[in-house]
Protein backbone atom coordinates (compact mmCIF):
# COMPACT_ATOMS: atom_id res chain seq x y z
CA UNK A 1 0.00 0.00 0.00
CA UNK A 2 1.12 3.53 -0.75
CA UNK A 3 2.03 5.76 2.17
CA UNK A 4 0.03 8.94 2.69
CA UNK A 5 1.29 12.29 3.96
CA UNK A 6 -0.23 15.68 4.73
CA UNK A 7 1.28 18.45 2.59
CA UNK A 8 -1.06 21.39 3.13
CA UNK A 9 -3.47 22.90 5.66
CA UNK A 10 -6.09 25.64 5.51
CA UNK A 11 -8.21 27.14 8.28
CA UNK A 12 -11.18 29.44 8.68
CA UNK A 13 -12.02 28.95 12.34
CA UNK A 14 -13.20 30.62 15.50
CA UNK A 15 -9.56 30.82 16.65
CA UNK A 16 -8.08 32.16 13.44
CA UNK A 17 -8.56 32.55 9.71
CA UNK A 18 -5.23 31.06 8.67
CA UNK A 19 -2.67 28.56 9.88
CA UNK A 20 -0.42 31.12 11.63
CA UNK A 21 -3.36 32.64 13.52
CA UNK A 22 -4.64 29.21 14.62
CA UNK A 23 -1.18 28.21 15.80
CA UNK A 24 -0.80 31.48 17.70
CA UNK A 25 -4.19 31.03 19.42
CA UNK A 26 -3.41 27.43 20.41
CA UNK A 27 -0.01 28.40 21.80
CA UNK A 28 -1.31 31.47 23.61
CA UNK A 29 -4.36 29.61 24.94
CA UNK A 30 -6.73 32.05 23.24
CA UNK A 31 -10.23 30.75 22.57
CA UNK A 32 -12.73 31.76 19.90
CA UNK A 33 -15.94 31.45 21.90
CA UNK A 34 -18.03 34.58 22.40
CA UNK A 35 -21.53 35.76 23.15
CA UNK A 36 -23.54 35.73 19.91
CA UNK A 37 -26.15 38.47 20.34
CA UNK A 38 -28.47 37.37 17.51
CA UNK A 39 -28.49 33.83 18.92
CA UNK A 40 -29.10 35.00 22.50
CA UNK A 41 -31.96 37.19 21.28
CA UNK A 42 -33.71 34.21 19.71
CA UNK A 43 -33.90 31.89 22.72
CA UNK A 44 -33.40 31.44 26.45
CA UNK A 45 -31.14 28.38 26.36
CA UNK A 46 -27.99 29.07 24.38
CA UNK A 47 -25.96 32.25 23.99
CA UNK A 48 -22.39 31.29 23.13
CA UNK A 49 -20.86 30.23 19.83
CA UNK A 50 -17.40 29.78 18.34
CA UNK A 51 -17.98 32.66 15.95
CA UNK A 52 -16.04 33.06 12.71
CA UNK A 53 -14.63 36.57 12.63
CA UNK A 54 -14.55 38.81 9.56
CA UNK A 55 -17.37 37.05 7.68
CA UNK A 56 -20.88 38.54 7.74
CA UNK A 57 -24.06 37.08 6.27
CA UNK A 58 -26.72 39.68 7.15
CA UNK A 59 -29.30 38.52 4.56
CA UNK A 60 -29.74 35.53 2.28
CA UNK A 61 -28.65 37.64 -0.72
CA UNK A 62 -24.97 36.74 -1.27
CA UNK A 63 -24.31 40.22 -2.64
CA UNK A 64 -24.97 41.54 0.89
CA UNK A 65 -22.29 39.26 2.38
CA UNK A 66 -18.89 40.56 3.42
CA UNK A 67 -15.57 38.78 3.82
CA UNK A 68 -11.98 39.48 4.78
CA UNK A 69 -10.16 41.30 1.98
CA UNK A 70 -8.28 38.26 0.71
CA UNK A 71 -11.51 36.30 0.08
CA UNK A 72 -12.86 37.10 -3.38
CA UNK A 73 -15.93 35.91 -5.25
CA UNK A 74 -17.49 37.00 -8.51
CA UNK A 75 -21.23 37.63 -8.57
CA UNK A 76 -21.72 34.40 -10.53
CA UNK A 77 -19.69 32.36 -8.05
CA UNK A 78 -21.71 33.79 -5.18
CA UNK A 79 -25.10 32.84 -6.63
CA UNK A 80 -24.94 29.25 -5.40
CA UNK A 81 -22.81 29.82 -2.30
CA UNK A 82 -23.73 28.97 1.27
CA UNK A 83 -21.81 30.32 4.26
CA UNK A 84 -19.91 27.10 4.97
CA UNK A 85 -18.83 26.85 1.32
CA UNK A 86 -17.58 30.43 1.50
CA UNK A 87 -15.41 29.46 4.48
CA UNK A 88 -14.21 26.38 2.60
CA UNK A 89 -13.21 28.24 -0.55
CA UNK A 90 -11.01 30.48 1.60
CA UNK A 91 -9.53 27.50 3.51
CA UNK A 92 -9.00 25.58 0.23
CA UNK A 93 -7.06 28.49 -1.21
CA UNK A 94 -4.78 28.58 1.83
CA UNK A 95 -4.26 24.80 1.69
CA UNK A 96 -3.49 24.86 -2.05
CA UNK A 97 -0.97 27.63 -1.55
CA UNK A 98 0.50 25.91 1.53
CA UNK A 99 0.95 22.64 -0.38
CA UNK A 100 2.32 24.58 -3.36
CA UNK A 101 -0.06 22.86 -5.75
CA UNK A 102 -0.14 24.44 -9.18
CA UNK A 103 -3.49 24.57 -11.03
CA UNK A 104 -2.71 21.42 -13.04
CA UNK A 105 -2.36 19.44 -9.80
CA UNK A 106 -5.57 20.88 -8.32
CA UNK A 107 -7.67 20.11 -11.38
CA UNK A 108 -6.39 16.67 -12.35
CA UNK A 109 -7.96 13.22 -12.77
CA UNK A 110 -5.49 12.14 -10.06
CA UNK A 111 -6.80 14.67 -7.53
CA UNK A 112 -10.07 14.25 -5.64
CA UNK A 113 -12.06 15.98 -2.91
CA UNK A 114 -13.91 14.45 0.03
CA UNK A 115 -15.90 16.89 2.10
CA UNK A 116 -18.40 17.11 4.92
CA UNK A 117 -20.93 19.66 6.09
CA UNK A 118 -24.53 19.40 7.23
CA UNK A 119 -25.59 21.91 4.57
CA UNK A 120 -26.89 25.35 5.41
CA UNK A 121 -29.95 24.88 7.59
CA UNK A 122 -30.61 28.61 7.17
CA UNK A 123 -30.67 28.60 3.36
CA UNK A 124 -32.46 25.24 3.20
CA UNK A 125 -35.19 26.74 5.37
CA UNK A 126 -35.46 29.82 3.14
CA UNK A 127 -35.56 27.69 -0.02
CA UNK A 128 -38.45 25.59 1.25
CA UNK A 129 -40.25 28.64 2.62
CA UNK A 130 -39.94 30.38 -0.74
CA UNK A 131 -41.30 27.51 -2.84
CA UNK A 132 -44.18 27.05 -0.39
CA UNK A 133 -45.17 30.69 0.01
CA UNK A 134 -44.08 32.38 -3.25
CA UNK A 135 -44.28 29.26 -5.39
CA UNK A 136 -41.66 27.54 -7.56
CA UNK A 137 -41.93 30.09 -10.37
CA UNK A 138 -41.14 32.95 -7.98
CA UNK A 139 -38.22 31.19 -6.30
CA UNK A 140 -34.75 31.97 -7.54
CA UNK A 141 -33.22 28.92 -9.25
CA UNK A 142 -29.92 28.83 -7.31
CA UNK A 143 -31.88 28.25 -4.08
CA UNK A 144 -32.21 24.62 -5.20
CA UNK A 145 -28.45 24.34 -4.87
CA UNK A 146 -28.11 26.43 -1.73
CA UNK A 147 -30.82 24.33 -0.10
CA UNK A 148 -29.19 20.96 -0.79
CA UNK A 149 -27.41 19.09 2.01
CA UNK A 150 -24.37 18.52 -0.22
CA UNK A 151 -24.21 22.11 -1.39
CA UNK A 152 -20.62 22.34 -0.14
CA UNK A 153 -19.64 19.49 -2.45
CA UNK A 154 -21.34 21.00 -5.52
CA UNK A 155 -19.79 24.39 -4.95
CA UNK A 156 -16.24 23.17 -4.26
CA UNK A 157 -16.00 20.68 -7.13
CA UNK A 158 -17.16 23.38 -9.57
CA UNK A 159 -15.06 26.19 -8.14
CA UNK A 160 -11.81 24.15 -8.11
CA UNK A 161 -12.61 22.07 -11.24
CA UNK A 162 -12.08 18.83 -9.33
CA UNK A 163 -11.72 15.91 -11.76
CA UNK A 164 -10.98 12.95 -9.46
CA UNK A 165 -13.13 11.25 -6.83
CA UNK A 166 -15.56 13.53 -5.00
CA UNK A 167 -18.02 12.61 -2.27
CA UNK A 168 -19.93 14.45 0.45
CA UNK A 169 -19.86 12.58 3.76
CA UNK A 170 -22.63 12.76 6.32
CA UNK A 171 -22.14 10.94 9.62
CA UNK A 172 -22.91 13.83 11.96
CA UNK A 173 -19.93 14.85 14.09
CA UNK A 174 -17.75 12.07 12.69
CA UNK A 175 -18.31 13.20 9.06
CA UNK A 176 -15.03 14.84 8.18
CA UNK A 177 -13.02 12.16 10.01
CA UNK A 178 -14.77 9.57 7.84
CA UNK A 179 -13.90 11.75 4.85
CA UNK A 180 -10.23 11.84 5.87
CA UNK A 181 -9.93 8.13 6.52
CA UNK A 182 -11.66 7.28 3.26
CA UNK A 183 -9.50 9.75 1.34
CA UNK A 184 -6.42 8.15 2.88
CA UNK A 185 -7.59 4.73 1.64
CA UNK A 186 -8.00 6.00 -1.94
CA UNK A 187 -4.38 7.14 -2.00
CA UNK A 188 -3.16 3.96 -0.30
CA UNK A 189 -4.89 1.92 -3.00
CA UNK A 190 -3.28 4.02 -5.72
CA UNK A 191 -6.58 5.37 -7.00
CA UNK A 192 -5.68 9.03 -6.41
CA UNK A 193 -2.42 10.89 -5.86
CA UNK A 194 -3.86 13.88 -4.00
CA UNK A 195 -7.06 14.24 -1.96
CA UNK A 196 -8.49 17.43 -0.51
CA UNK A 197 -10.29 16.72 2.76
CA UNK A 198 -12.71 19.47 3.73
CA UNK A 199 -14.86 19.91 6.82
CA UNK A 200 -17.20 22.89 7.12
CA UNK A 201 -20.25 24.24 8.90
CA UNK A 202 -22.26 27.44 9.04
CA UNK A 203 -22.27 29.31 12.34
CA UNK A 204 -25.90 30.41 12.33
CA UNK A 205 -28.73 30.18 14.87
CA UNK A 206 -30.55 27.75 12.54
CA UNK A 207 -27.84 25.10 12.82
CA UNK A 208 -27.27 25.80 16.53
CA UNK A 209 -30.77 25.99 18.05
CA UNK A 210 -31.89 22.41 17.26
CA UNK A 211 -29.09 21.11 19.48
CA UNK A 212 -30.44 23.27 22.31
CA UNK A 213 -33.70 21.32 22.01
CA UNK A 214 -31.66 18.20 22.73
CA UNK A 215 -30.29 19.96 25.83
CA UNK A 216 -26.81 19.20 24.56
CA UNK A 217 -25.56 22.81 24.56
CA UNK A 218 -24.01 24.84 27.35
CA UNK A 219 -26.28 27.54 28.74
CA UNK A 220 -23.34 29.63 29.99
CA UNK A 221 -23.00 33.22 28.90
CA UNK A 222 -19.36 33.58 29.98
CA UNK A 223 -16.93 32.28 27.32
CA UNK A 224 -14.40 31.52 30.08
CA UNK A 225 -16.76 28.86 31.46
CA UNK A 226 -17.78 26.99 28.34
CA UNK A 227 -17.26 24.63 26.82
CA UNK A 228 -15.29 22.83 29.55
CA UNK A 229 -14.52 19.29 28.42
CA UNK A 230 -13.42 17.02 31.29
CA UNK A 231 -14.35 19.59 33.97
CA UNK A 232 -16.67 18.30 36.67
CA UNK A 233 -19.01 21.29 36.02
CA UNK A 234 -19.19 20.93 32.24
CA UNK A 235 -22.69 21.64 30.99
CA UNK A 236 -22.69 20.90 27.28
CA UNK A 237 -21.01 21.94 24.07
CA UNK A 238 -20.73 25.24 22.21
CA UNK A 239 -21.15 25.16 18.44
CA UNK A 240 -18.70 26.65 15.98
CA UNK A 241 -18.53 27.02 12.21
CA UNK A 242 -15.80 27.61 9.66
CA UNK A 243 -13.79 25.23 7.55
CA UNK A 244 -10.61 23.19 7.75
CA UNK A 245 -8.83 21.68 4.75
CA UNK A 246 -6.06 19.08 4.64
CA UNK A 247 -4.15 18.12 1.51
CA UNK A 248 -3.44 14.37 1.62
CA UNK A 249 -0.87 13.15 -0.85
CA UNK A 250 0.86 9.97 -1.94
CA UNK A 251 4.21 10.07 -0.11
CA UNK A 252 6.28 9.28 -3.24
CA UNK A 253 4.37 11.90 -5.24
CA UNK A 254 5.02 14.47 -2.50
CA UNK A 255 8.71 13.54 -2.31
CA UNK A 256 9.11 13.73 -6.09
CA UNK A 257 7.91 17.32 -6.18
CA UNK A 258 9.82 18.28 -3.03
CA UNK A 259 6.71 19.05 -1.00
CA UNK A 260 6.97 20.05 2.64
CA UNK A 261 5.35 17.42 4.89
CA UNK A 262 3.43 18.01 8.10
CA UNK A 263 2.83 14.42 9.09
CA UNK A 264 2.20 10.94 7.79
CA UNK A 265 -1.33 9.55 8.00
CA UNK A 266 -0.38 6.27 9.66
CA UNK A 267 -3.82 4.75 9.76
CA UNK A 268 -7.40 5.05 10.84
CA UNK A 269 -10.19 2.98 12.30
CA UNK A 270 -13.92 3.20 12.62
CA UNK A 271 -16.57 1.36 14.59
CA UNK A 272 -20.16 1.99 15.60
CA UNK A 273 -21.78 1.79 19.01
CA UNK A 274 -24.91 -0.05 17.90
CA UNK A 275 -26.54 1.51 20.91
CA UNK A 276 -28.74 4.59 20.51
CA UNK A 277 -29.81 7.32 18.08
CA UNK A 278 -27.99 10.07 19.98
CA UNK A 279 -26.65 8.83 23.32
CA UNK A 280 -23.17 7.29 23.28
CA UNK A 281 -22.69 3.80 24.67
CA UNK A 282 -21.61 4.69 28.25
CA UNK A 283 -18.94 1.98 28.16
CA UNK A 284 -17.23 3.71 25.21
CA UNK A 285 -16.97 0.31 23.53
CA UNK A 286 -17.57 1.64 20.00
CA UNK A 287 -14.92 4.34 20.27
CA UNK A 288 -12.52 1.88 21.93
CA UNK A 289 -12.92 -0.48 18.97
CA UNK A 290 -12.36 2.42 16.54
CA UNK A 291 -9.11 3.29 18.35
CA UNK A 292 -7.93 -0.35 18.36
CA UNK A 293 -8.76 -0.65 14.67
CA UNK A 294 -6.74 2.50 13.97
CA UNK A 295 -3.74 1.21 15.95
CA UNK A 296 -3.87 -2.09 14.12
CA UNK A 297 -4.15 -0.31 10.76
CA UNK A 298 -1.16 1.88 11.66
CA UNK A 299 0.87 -1.10 12.98
CA UNK A 300 1.42 0.79 16.21
CA UNK A 301 1.39 -0.33 19.85
CA UNK A 302 -0.71 1.64 22.35
CA UNK A 303 2.48 2.74 24.11
CA UNK A 304 3.63 4.59 20.97
CA UNK A 305 0.80 7.16 21.03
CA UNK A 306 2.05 10.41 22.60
CA UNK A 307 -1.00 12.64 22.33
CA UNK A 308 -4.72 12.23 21.79
CA UNK A 309 -6.87 15.06 20.51
CA UNK A 310 -10.09 13.87 22.12
CA UNK A 311 -13.56 14.27 20.70
CA UNK A 312 -14.71 15.43 24.19
CA UNK A 313 -17.35 18.08 23.51
CA UNK A 314 -18.15 18.80 27.19
CA UNK A 315 -21.39 16.87 27.42
CA UNK A 316 -21.59 14.76 30.53
CA UNK A 317 -22.37 11.51 28.72
CA UNK A 318 -19.98 11.99 25.79
CA UNK A 319 -16.93 12.84 27.86
CA UNK A 320 -17.56 9.91 30.23
CA UNK A 321 -17.93 7.45 27.35
CA UNK A 322 -14.68 8.68 25.79
CA UNK A 323 -12.86 8.45 29.15
CA UNK A 324 -14.04 4.84 29.50
CA UNK A 325 -12.88 4.12 25.96
CA UNK A 326 -9.46 5.67 26.62
CA UNK A 327 -9.06 3.70 29.87
CA UNK A 328 -9.94 0.43 28.17
CA UNK A 329 -7.45 0.91 25.30
CA UNK A 330 -4.54 2.66 27.03
CA UNK A 331 -3.58 0.53 30.02
CA UNK A 332 -0.53 -0.08 32.19
CA UNK A 333 2.33 2.12 30.99
CA UNK A 334 0.52 3.49 27.97
CA UNK A 335 -0.44 6.99 29.13
CA UNK A 336 -0.76 9.36 26.17
CA UNK A 337 -1.46 13.00 26.98
CA UNK A 338 -5.05 13.96 26.21
CA UNK A 339 -6.72 17.28 25.48
CA UNK A 340 -9.87 18.56 23.86
CA UNK A 341 -9.18 21.63 21.75
CA UNK A 342 -12.95 22.19 21.55
CA UNK A 343 -12.54 24.27 24.73
CA UNK A 344 -10.81 26.82 22.45
CA UNK A 345 -12.62 26.31 19.15
CA UNK A 346 -16.10 25.09 20.08
CA UNK A 347 -17.60 21.98 18.52
CA UNK A 348 -17.59 22.10 14.73
CA UNK A 349 -20.01 19.18 14.12
CA UNK A 350 -19.17 17.97 10.57
CA UNK A 351 -16.16 20.28 10.63
CA UNK A 352 -14.76 18.93 13.91
CA UNK A 353 -12.83 15.94 12.55
CA UNK A 354 -10.98 17.88 9.86
CA UNK A 355 -10.30 20.83 12.17
CA UNK A 356 -8.84 18.60 14.87
CA UNK A 357 -6.89 16.51 12.35
CA UNK A 358 -5.36 19.74 11.05
CA UNK A 359 -4.58 20.85 14.62
CA UNK A 360 -2.96 17.44 15.23
CA UNK A 361 -0.72 17.98 12.18
CA UNK A 362 0.22 21.45 13.48
CA UNK A 363 1.09 19.92 16.86
CA UNK A 364 3.49 17.45 15.20
CA UNK A 365 5.06 20.07 12.91
CA UNK A 366 5.37 22.79 15.57
CA UNK A 367 6.34 20.54 18.47
CA UNK A 368 3.70 21.10 21.12
CA UNK A 369 0.52 19.62 22.55
CA UNK A 370 -2.36 22.09 23.04
CA UNK A 371 -4.07 22.36 26.40
CA UNK A 372 -7.51 21.21 27.41
CA UNK A 373 -8.56 24.69 28.50
CA UNK A 374 -11.04 26.04 31.06
CA UNK A 375 -10.66 23.16 33.52
CA UNK A 376 -11.21 24.39 37.08
CA UNK A 377 -11.88 21.05 38.69
CA UNK A 378 -11.04 17.91 36.77
CA UNK A 379 -13.82 15.33 36.76
CA UNK A 380 -12.63 12.47 39.04
CA UNK A 381 -13.62 10.17 36.18
CA UNK A 382 -10.43 11.39 34.48
CA UNK A 383 -8.31 9.44 37.01
CA UNK A 384 -5.91 7.29 35.04
CA UNK A 385 -6.08 9.56 31.98
CA UNK A 386 -3.38 12.24 31.51
CA UNK A 387 -5.49 15.29 30.73
CA UNK A 388 -3.31 18.24 29.70
CA UNK A 389 -4.62 21.17 31.70
CA UNK A 390 -1.87 23.35 30.27
CA UNK A 391 0.11 23.36 27.01
CA UNK A 392 2.98 20.89 26.76
CA UNK A 393 5.97 21.95 24.69
CA UNK A 394 7.10 18.49 23.67
CA UNK A 395 6.82 17.27 20.10
CA UNK A 396 4.35 14.38 19.88
CA UNK A 397 5.66 11.72 17.49
CA UNK A 398 2.35 9.93 17.17
CA UNK A 399 -1.03 11.66 17.55
CA UNK A 400 -4.50 10.15 17.57
CA UNK A 401 -7.55 12.30 16.79
CA UNK A 402 -10.95 10.98 17.86
CA UNK A 403 -14.41 11.76 16.53
CA UNK A 404 -17.79 10.45 17.60
CA UNK A 405 -21.09 11.31 15.99
CA UNK A 406 -24.74 10.86 16.84
CA UNK A 407 -25.84 7.39 15.89
CA UNK A 408 -22.73 6.04 17.58
CA UNK A 409 -20.33 6.53 14.66
CA UNK A 410 -16.73 6.59 15.89
CA UNK A 411 -13.51 7.33 14.03
CA UNK A 412 -9.89 7.42 15.22
CA UNK A 413 -7.21 8.91 12.95
CA UNK A 414 -3.48 8.44 13.57
CA UNK A 415 -0.83 10.90 12.40
CA UNK A 416 2.92 10.56 12.95
CA UNK A 417 5.99 12.70 12.39
CA UNK A 418 7.22 12.16 8.84
Amino acid sequence: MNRVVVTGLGFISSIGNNRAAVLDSLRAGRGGIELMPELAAMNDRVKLAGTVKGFHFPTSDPLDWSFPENVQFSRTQLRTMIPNAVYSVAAMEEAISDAQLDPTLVSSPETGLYCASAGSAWLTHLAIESVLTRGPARTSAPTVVTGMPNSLHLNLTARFAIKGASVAFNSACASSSHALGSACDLIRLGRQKIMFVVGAEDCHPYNILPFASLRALSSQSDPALAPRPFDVSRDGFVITGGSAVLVLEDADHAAARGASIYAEVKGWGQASDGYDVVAPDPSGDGLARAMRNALQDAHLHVSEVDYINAHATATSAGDLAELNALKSVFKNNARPKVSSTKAFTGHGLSLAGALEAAISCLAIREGFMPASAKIELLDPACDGVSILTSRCDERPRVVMSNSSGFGGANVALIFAEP
Partner: protein
Amino acid sequence: MAEMPMTEERKQEIAKSLKRCSDETLEAALRFEESRDLAELPAIILGVLARDAANPKPEGVAAATDDCRLMEDIGMDSFGMIEVVMTAEEVLGITVANQEMNEIRTLGQLKSFLRTKLAA
Protein backbone atom coordinates in the same frame (compact mmCIF):
# COMPACT_ATOMS: atom_id res chain seq x y z
CA MET B 1 -53.23 54.95 -21.91
CA ALA B 2 -52.82 54.22 -18.22
CA GLU B 3 -55.72 52.10 -17.04
CA MET B 4 -55.31 52.62 -13.32
CA PRO B 5 -52.67 54.17 -11.08
CA MET B 6 -49.99 51.82 -9.85
CA THR B 7 -50.28 50.83 -6.18
CA GLU B 8 -47.33 51.39 -3.87
CA GLU B 9 -47.28 47.64 -3.28
CA ARG B 10 -46.92 46.89 -7.00
CA LYS B 11 -44.19 49.50 -7.24
CA GLN B 12 -42.28 47.77 -4.45
CA GLU B 13 -42.76 44.38 -6.13
CA ILE B 14 -41.26 45.66 -9.35
CA ALA B 15 -38.39 47.31 -7.49
CA LYS B 16 -37.70 44.04 -5.64
CA SER B 17 -37.69 42.03 -8.88
CA LEU B 18 -35.27 44.53 -10.40
CA LYS B 19 -32.98 44.69 -7.34
CA ARG B 20 -29.45 45.59 -8.42
CA CYS B 21 -30.56 46.64 -11.92
CA SER B 22 -29.73 50.20 -13.03
CA ASP B 23 -32.03 53.08 -12.13
CA GLU B 24 -32.84 53.48 -15.84
CA THR B 25 -34.06 49.87 -15.95
CA LEU B 26 -36.36 50.38 -12.98
CA GLU B 27 -37.68 53.66 -14.40
CA ALA B 28 -38.43 52.01 -17.75
CA ALA B 29 -40.25 49.16 -15.97
CA LEU B 30 -42.35 51.57 -13.90
CA ARG B 31 -43.25 53.56 -17.03
CA PHE B 32 -44.14 50.29 -18.79
CA GLU B 33 -46.38 49.27 -15.89
CA GLU B 34 -48.44 52.43 -16.39
CA SER B 35 -48.30 52.82 -20.16
CA ARG B 36 -47.83 49.22 -21.42
CA ASP B 37 -45.74 50.91 -24.13
CA LEU B 38 -43.64 48.22 -25.84
CA ALA B 39 -41.00 50.83 -26.66
CA GLU B 40 -39.86 50.53 -23.03
CA LEU B 41 -39.13 46.82 -23.48
CA PRO B 42 -35.54 46.92 -24.85
CA ALA B 43 -34.27 49.00 -21.90
CA ILE B 44 -35.87 46.62 -19.42
CA ILE B 45 -34.53 43.51 -21.16
CA LEU B 46 -30.98 44.85 -21.51
CA GLY B 47 -30.97 46.03 -17.89
CA VAL B 48 -31.95 42.60 -16.60
CA LEU B 49 -29.50 40.81 -18.91
CA ALA B 50 -26.73 43.12 -17.66
CA ARG B 51 -27.56 42.18 -14.10
CA ASP B 52 -27.81 38.43 -14.67
CA ALA B 53 -25.05 37.76 -17.23
CA ALA B 54 -22.68 35.21 -15.64
CA ASN B 55 -19.81 35.98 -18.00
CA PRO B 56 -20.47 39.49 -19.29
CA LYS B 57 -18.40 40.69 -22.21
CA PRO B 58 -16.07 43.63 -21.58
CA GLU B 59 -18.00 45.83 -24.01
CA GLY B 60 -21.10 45.35 -21.84
CA VAL B 61 -24.63 44.23 -22.61
CA ALA B 62 -25.84 47.66 -23.74
CA ALA B 63 -24.00 47.29 -27.04
CA ALA B 64 -25.66 43.95 -27.85
CA THR B 65 -27.57 43.74 -31.12
CA ASP B 66 -30.60 41.59 -31.92
CA ASP B 67 -28.52 38.89 -33.60
CA CYS B 68 -26.38 38.40 -30.45
CA ARG B 69 -26.75 34.93 -28.92
CA LEU B 70 -27.74 35.10 -25.25
CA MET B 71 -25.29 32.43 -24.07
CA GLU B 72 -22.29 32.76 -26.36
CA ASP B 73 -22.32 36.50 -27.13
CA ILE B 74 -23.97 38.11 -24.12
CA GLY B 75 -22.57 35.71 -21.51
CA MET B 76 -25.74 34.28 -20.02
CA ASP B 77 -25.73 30.83 -18.39
CA SER B 78 -28.56 28.49 -17.40
CA PHE B 79 -29.10 29.95 -13.93
CA GLY B 80 -28.98 33.47 -15.37
CA MET B 81 -31.60 32.65 -18.02
CA ILE B 82 -33.97 31.26 -15.38
CA GLU B 83 -33.47 34.45 -13.39
CA VAL B 84 -34.26 36.57 -16.48
CA VAL B 85 -37.44 34.63 -17.20
CA MET B 86 -38.55 34.85 -13.56
CA THR B 87 -37.94 38.61 -13.59
CA ALA B 88 -39.85 38.97 -16.87
CA GLU B 89 -42.80 37.09 -15.38
CA GLU B 90 -42.82 39.29 -12.29
CA VAL B 91 -42.22 42.65 -13.94
CA LEU B 92 -44.21 42.20 -17.15
CA GLY B 93 -46.98 40.06 -15.69
CA ILE B 94 -46.65 37.15 -18.12
CA THR B 95 -46.18 33.39 -17.77
CA VAL B 96 -43.43 31.58 -19.65
CA ALA B 97 -43.51 27.81 -20.17
CA ASN B 98 -40.27 25.81 -19.86
CA GLN B 99 -40.41 24.82 -23.53
CA GLU B 100 -40.88 28.44 -24.64
CA MET B 101 -37.83 29.44 -22.63
CA ASN B 102 -35.71 26.71 -24.18
CA GLU B 103 -36.42 27.98 -27.70
CA ILE B 104 -35.05 31.48 -27.11
CA ARG B 105 -31.48 31.72 -28.37
CA THR B 106 -30.86 35.36 -29.39
CA LEU B 107 -31.61 38.80 -28.02
CA GLY B 108 -33.93 39.42 -31.01
CA GLN B 109 -35.86 36.21 -30.28
CA LEU B 110 -36.22 37.23 -26.63
CA LYS B 111 -37.56 40.66 -27.58
CA SER B 112 -40.04 39.35 -30.14
CA PHE B 113 -41.14 36.54 -27.79
CA LEU B 114 -41.92 39.08 -25.06
CA ARG B 115 -43.67 41.42 -27.53
CA THR B 116 -45.88 38.55 -28.75
CA LYS B 117 -46.65 37.50 -25.15
CA LEU B 118 -47.57 41.05 -24.17
CA ALA B 119 -49.69 41.57 -27.25
CA ALA B 120 -51.66 38.41 -26.57
